[in-house]
């Protein structure tokens, strides 16, 4: 994410939509991407991204400038996505199978798509689908977003050793299921 100036954050926290639009332009990509990877559903990811930005707009005056804005946004996004997963689990009728999710994701706009890339994308989607939501969040933040263990621990509000154990368990599952997903 490109850097967002303190001035922009202050103006947005005072209600400036122009300043907030700047924040949105710089952060919408990763917010949507993380939500989509965790939820594996385009409509849910859009809804979560919308809620995340409304939440950010309303909470900017509570943002502590000493912490990283990016990590704070990751935290809001992951929490919103995990809450959405839990809600979705409760709504049995709204359950989305992997095939449905793939069908829904046909219209995803991927930067410069090619046959190989689409194949890789499908493999990643299948791999993430093997994991539980907490493990998926860890893998998305580490392998796709490139966060360090410390940043993941802050974003998920968990101990750094819990980050390690979730990553280890997730990768063990991926190794075990490699023939199924490949």
């Amino acid at each position, binding site marked *: 994410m490109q850097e967002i100036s303190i001035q922009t954050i202050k103006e947005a926290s005072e209600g400036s939509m122009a300043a907030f639009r700047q924040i949105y332009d710089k952060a919408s*990509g990763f917010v949507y991407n993380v939500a989509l990877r965790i939820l594996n559903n385009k409509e849910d990811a859009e809804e979560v991204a919308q809620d995340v930005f409304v939440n950010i707009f309303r909470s900017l005056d509570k943002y502590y400038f000493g912490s990283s804005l990016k990590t704070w946004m990751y935290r809001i996004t992951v929490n919103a996505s995990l809450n959405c997963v839990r809600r979705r689990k409760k709504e049995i009728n709204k359950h989305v199978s992997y095939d449905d999710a793939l069908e829904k994701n046909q219209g995803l706009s991927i930067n410069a798509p090619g046959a190989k890339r689409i194949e890789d994308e499908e493999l990643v989607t299948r791999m993430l689908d093997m994991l539980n939501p907490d493990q998926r969040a860890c893998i998305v933040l580490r392998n796709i977003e490139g966060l360090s263990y410390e940043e993941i621990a802050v974003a998920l509000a968990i101990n750094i050793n819990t980050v390690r154990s979730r990553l280890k368990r997730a990768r063990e599952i991926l190794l075990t299921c490699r023939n199924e997903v490949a």
Partner: protein
Amino acid sequence: MDCKIIETWILTDYLDGELGPAKLQALESHLKTCRACSDFLQEAKTTIVRPFEDTKQHMPQQEYLWNRIKAKIEEEPKQYPKMTLERIIRSFRAPKPIFALSTCAALILAVFVLTQARALYQKTYNRQLAATALTEQLEYFASDEITSFGTDAENYFL
């Protein structure tokens, strides 16, 4: 070194570049002598690292999503803390330990102030009583006119 420990390091800190120099050295010397762990590392790289290397960022439909966000924000405009009532309500929403602690502190302060005020009032009242009694006594001794010697029996004899 135990291969189980090496596998754990490979699956976590090593693949993510978070392994410290001492452990890294230990792991690399182990890999030179253990074929099983070397194969495990290659398998881990192929299966759980490479597929994620070329993933590209999915982008939302920027304008469509922005319009939805803007509409939702305008639908329920943000309330700025200008109303006193809201501030009071907000203070009640503070985390419970902070609220409990501040309530206890306020109660202790109130009890202390009341006790001190009562003690001060009692002291002042006693001083006033003593001063009045002294004044009356001095006035009595200063006066030459003796109207009474005390009880009826004392008046009779004196």
